């Protein structure tokens, strides 16, 4: 429909590049940067496991010389302003001082800026993978919208007071009340049948590289159009049931969300950087099961579990019931859903490592494989490997405080081919 669907619908995610342009590399010699004169290609792809790759290859030999796995918010790609003569761009590693420089080899300069913008989008807002025969409509829509120029967006939104062709699509969305976060829909309004998965993590909306404060010009444009139509409000999915955390954001504006349509976009994609086709949420299978009853029938198990729960103010409260109540609570369910999601996004390796689980379980967490993780836990553990409250207590802190340390470590491991052979074999 909008002519930029080259990446869409292709089921072999790893062979179609999400972006590519001709660019040469620069080599650092001491503190000076010298261009490598070879003809090259900068491109980004998403492998089947959902990871984003930033690559450079020699166009003459065909050899891929750089293949970096990139995670959101780790990198920034921008133009080097000091280079007045050339079109030089730098890929900055936020967690280190490493830099990679590239110089444009595209004959025309008119797309330079667009390429730069697009790279940043992909670096920080990886698309959901298009699998299972092309992915679903919502993902494609988002992908298209991400790629549209301002002109195309204007056409899309049509004239004053209407949202053009999108108004019918917007009607399908799934707004939820804020307080229905824990319970089924409440208050006025309705819950449409289209439910976004509970543990939706929201990718960033396509705007300027450091998207936290400023809206892009496209944002303002959409906002401007919306000011006319009262259907503007329909553009949002509240997604109150979503289980993301209350952290500082990178895209959410510090003021009110100026662009309801951005909210729509950001709520569409169900998974964060997900290459996985299925987002398995353990909380959907846990509450009220016989399994829990069996577990708490054993007083020793009750003891080991209860130390990780807040102290009950009611001294008489039955510990078994306490455990059950917690497990059935919406707060726990959301935490478990978050955990499931994060594990499958291959983000929990360093976190899981701190809990004295088997090496297999840790490896599964690093590779984002929930099934392997489960299997690893099912294998009998050596005696005495249950956690005690003290170590668990201290282990919590490093997770938040040492963020700077643990994150790059994880990235380094992801990048080293030797550590993750299964990812290279696509």
């Amino acid at each position, binding site marked *: 429909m909008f002519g930029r669907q080259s990446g869409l619908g292709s089921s072999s995610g790893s062979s179609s590049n999400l972006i590519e342009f001709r660019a040469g590399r620069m080599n650092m010699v001491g503190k000076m940067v010298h261009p490598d004169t070879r003809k090259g290609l900068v491109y980004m792809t998403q492998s089947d496991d959902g990871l984003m790759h930033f690559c450079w290859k020699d166009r003459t030999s065909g050899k891929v010389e750089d293949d970096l796995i990139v995670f959101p918010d780790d990198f920034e790609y921008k133009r080097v302003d000091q280079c007045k003569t050339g079109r030089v761009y730098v890929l900055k590693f936020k967690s280190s001082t490493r830099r990679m420089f590239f110089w444009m080899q595209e004959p025309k300069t008119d797309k330079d800026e667009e390429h730069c913008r697009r790279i940043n989008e992909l670096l920080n807002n990886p698309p959901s993978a298009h699998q299972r025969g092309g992915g679903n409509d919502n993902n494609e829509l988002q992908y298209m919208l991400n790629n549209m120029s301002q002109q195309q967006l204007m056409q899309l939104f049509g004239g004053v007071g209407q949202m053009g062709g999108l108004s019918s699509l917007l009607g399908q969305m799934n707004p939820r009340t804020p307080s229905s976060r824990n319970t089924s829909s409440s208050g006025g309004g309705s819950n449409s049948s289209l439910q976004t998965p509970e543990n939706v993590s929201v990718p960033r909306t396509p705007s300027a590289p450091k998207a936290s404060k400023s809206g892009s010009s496209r944002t303002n444009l959409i906002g401007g159009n919306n000011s006319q139509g009262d259907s503007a409000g329909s553009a949002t999915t509240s997604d109150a049931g979503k289980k993301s955390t209350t952290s500082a954001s990178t895209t959410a504006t510090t003021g009110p969300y100026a662009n309801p349509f951005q909210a729509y976009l950001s709520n569409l994609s169900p998974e964060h950087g997900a290459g996985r086709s299925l987002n398995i949420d353990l909380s959907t299978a846990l509450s009220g099961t016989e*399994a829990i009853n069996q577990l708490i029938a054993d007083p020793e198990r009750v003891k080991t579990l209860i130390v990780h729960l807040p102290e009950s103010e009611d001294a008489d409260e039955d510990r078994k019931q306490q455990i059950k109540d917690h497990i059935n609570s919406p707060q726990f369910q959301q935490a478990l859903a978050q955990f499931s999601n994060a594990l499958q996004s291959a983000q929990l390796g360093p976190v899981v490592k701190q809990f004295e689980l088997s090496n297999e379980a840790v490896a599964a967490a690093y590779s984002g494989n929930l099934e392997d993780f489960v299997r690893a836990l099912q294998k009998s553990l050596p005696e005495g490997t249950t956690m005690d409250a003290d170590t668990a207590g201290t282990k919590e802190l490093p997770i938040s405080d040492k963020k700077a340390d643990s994150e790059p470590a994880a990235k380094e491991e992801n990048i080293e081919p030797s550590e993750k052979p299964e990812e290279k074999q696509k």
Partner: protein
Amino acid sequence: MSDNLSPDNDNGSWCLIESDPGVFTELISGFGCVGAQVEEIWSLETFSHLEPIHGLIFLFKWVQDDVVTGVVAPERSDIFFAKQVINNACATQAILSLLLNLKHEDIQLGETLTNFKQFCQQFDPYTRGLALSNATKIRDVHNSFARPTLFELEMKQPCREEDIYHFVGYMPINGRLFELDGLQEGPIDLGEIGSARSWVDVVRPIIEARIQRYSAGEIHFNLMALISDRQCIYERQIEALQKPDCMGTTLLPEAERLAEIGSLQAQLKFEVEKKKRYHQENMRRRHNYLPFIVELLKQLGQTGQLMPIYEQAKNHAMQRQPDREE
């Protein structure tokens, strides 16, 4: 508690908190204010059982085209209005916009809020907003209701839903109905209430109109009422009935009196349990479940029950898949 703050700006950031009457009720008492409670309202028709209603907090999606329904009043010394400076402080700002304008015998503001109000009395709305954003005690209470960060990687995902919602307060001040919206330039005068009707009757059509507008666009909203602490009210009423020599209750036949006491006691019990439940929920909100989750999964693994659970979850996920493609 400090783990709730983003490391990026750990000098005074406000966290997003859940819009839930339990959260709001404990938030208020956390500020040191006594005698108030927040209830969620489902229907605008019958809430006489919640009276006296001091104010209403309307939550909805913030949209740029929002129609201003009245005139922004010129600054008045009898209205405390603060502009919203920090988005995440929305919930607290909404509640304070009501509390700081309230003069009712049931409610005592407490030291923290009274001091804050006095401190800002002479400021303009914007400066008041800034003062609120820097009000450490108030902010700390607010942030104490935020979810703990289970793992730092999750911190990259912002809480989109709270970003989008907006809070607006409605309350009567000195005989007129006002809309208090921190994103506006000042309080909006919605008209005189008059002695013939209750302020709720006056605000009802205004809120209904808003609801209509948003329902048409499938926007979700919540309506919360700031009311007096029900437990206190019931206790007072029971006490009054138990002393038939006071007030005019001597006119009640004995049977009716006892029945009334019984009914009030049942409602009292309900309120007490509700508070207990709120407290439990808030405790759970604050609790970092990560160690518990890992231990639980470990134990389920040991007893061989984890795989079946996983399989079941997988089935659920697969069943959900076709829905997403609608």
